[in-house]
């Protein structure tokens, strides 16, 4: 079985936002130069999900696939150190500054070039843009069923079963392979790379493909092929002034807060 995990290399989404600056003119978010980059958290959990599947199905091959700047190679190395078998890097100026559509087109072309893929795993959404579009796009472009927000994944011969997160519980759904599965944080914490895997990772292959390697016309990908035009970008403003409830004891704080809420007609 061949699993491909799509991973995005992004500035640490849990870093204080003071580490980013917003350029309203260029309509870009720029991370401070020292800010560490990470595999987007849900994508890291998608790698974890793939590793768990391989534990249950010996002989499974896991490929990590990323589109980004040359530095995204670090994301692949992290995936390999977690235990993936090989990596594919799509780094090419022609692919830069795309949107969800061109990303899905480019990743789908890479998946086709990889050949017989049984399952594509993605994160539920990338933690920079917070969009959650690319996984569904890959499924539509490659004509595969898409099972979203996976909490757990099980494969049985030719079918995949996913327990997916709903707003009032979960449901178990099933589809034939090949399929796309998007992974949510409920799947659990990703493993840290072990020393042994990190050593082995250095010898694992990473191939690098350009748009033309994928048979993609530069006009249809990257900034040129994007369907989204960013009109504005800004930091939302906050105007709230907090009134701290001052009192000597927690009991008095409770009483005072209740009074203030009553005076403010909230209660």
């Amino acid at each position: 079985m061949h699993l491909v995990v799509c991973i995005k290399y992004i500035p640490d989404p849990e870093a204080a936002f003071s580490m980013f600056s917003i350029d309203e003119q260029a309509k870009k978010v720029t991370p401070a130069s020292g800010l560490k980059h990470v595999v987007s958290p849900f994508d890291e959990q998608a790698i974890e999900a793939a590793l768990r599947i391989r534990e249950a199905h010996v002989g499974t091959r896991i490929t990590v696939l990323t589109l980004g700047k040359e530095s995204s190679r670090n994301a692949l190395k992290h995936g390999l150190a977690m235990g993936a078998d090989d990596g594919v890097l799509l780094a090419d100026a022609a692919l830069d500054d795309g949107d969800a559509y061109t990303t899905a087109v480019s990743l789908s072309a890479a998946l086709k070039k990889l050949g017989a893929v049984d399952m594509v795993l993605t994160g539920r959404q990338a933690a920079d843009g917070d969009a959650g579009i690319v996984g569904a796009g890959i499924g539509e472009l490659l004509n595969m069923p898409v099972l979203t927000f996976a909490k757990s994944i099980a494969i049985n011969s030719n079918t995949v079963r996913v327990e997916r997160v709903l707003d009032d519980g979960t449901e178990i759904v099933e589809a034939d392979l090949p399929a796309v599965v998007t992974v949510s944080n409920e799947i659990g914490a990703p493993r840290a790379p072990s020393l042994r895997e990190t050593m082995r990772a250095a010898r694992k292959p990473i191939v690098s493909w350009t748009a033309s390697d994928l048979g993609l016309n530069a006009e249809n990908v990257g900034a040129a092929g994007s369907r989204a035009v960013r009109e504005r970008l800004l930091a939302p403003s906050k105007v709230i002034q907090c009134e701290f409830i001052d009192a000597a004891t927690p009991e008095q704080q409770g009483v005072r807060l209740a009074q203030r809420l009553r005076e403010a007609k909230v209660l």
Partner: protein
Amino acid sequence: MNTLVIAEMALDQPASASLEHLAVARSLAGEGRVIVLLLGAQIAAAESLIARGADKVIVGTPSAFDGYNSDAWTACAASVANEHAVALVLAAHTPRGADLAPRLAFRLNGACATGCVGVEQQDGALHFTRASHGGNVRETLRFKTECVVATVRAGIYDALPVDAKRQGEIVTLSPAPASRVRVIERKRESGVGVRLEDAKVIIAGGRGLNGPEGFDVLATLAETLGGVVGASRVPCDLGWCSHAMQIGLTGKTVTPELYIAVGISGASHHLAGCGNAKTMVAINTDKDAAIFRDAKFGVVGDYAKVVPALTAAIRALPTTS
């Protein structure tokens, strides 16, 4: 411009978010028609949607559509969108909407904007405003495609008032299209009272509760206020409470009158789901916690002492007329 709203049900009524999106669709449609796709619901619900601004409601009754199925619903929505040549599709930003919208967008060879907090028309083009980077950034997008599918967060727009005289068309759909996805089992959490999405008062707990027992303390306060208990992601991930209680970027969007955040640090990812609460109160041991920047009232202190005191004080308040 024709618009399509993918409506959701909350128990046996159209969800309030869907009514809000119907109002947006109505205002943007101009001379065009507002179509609503309502799957898994009875005709009565369709009638109520006409009174709220729909021109045509396409209903799939529970006998044919007994629950959400991404594959079948996407196929249905795509054929309705094509048949009515819609330029805009609005869905709720819920697990269903967020599952359906991007697939539908690709199926229609259109574009997709998720988690929108604004959809406006400017110079003849549709502009979609949404948060990114965990709620720290707000971007406005326009798309080059003829059709855009957007999910919109709840509580941003007002629903139109009920107009019982409005006329509209109701069509039923049957059977459901074939699906490559088989639903094996649904595990619903027994609905206890009001849904978080509709709650007027929410008491939300975070990692600062230091264990599942803390939620009992919050439940007592919630009971006193007639409210509902919610959570940040951490206690859900730790198994202290159900993940269905998660509020935030990847949890629920709530818009209560009163939101009391207890032992929650105030990460932007959390505020993405509750930042529109009318009045926020924060209870936290750390006076520098970010949550105080969004709160109208703040208490610096240990929740285990403050919350019971608050509960008792509220019980002791004279009743209002």
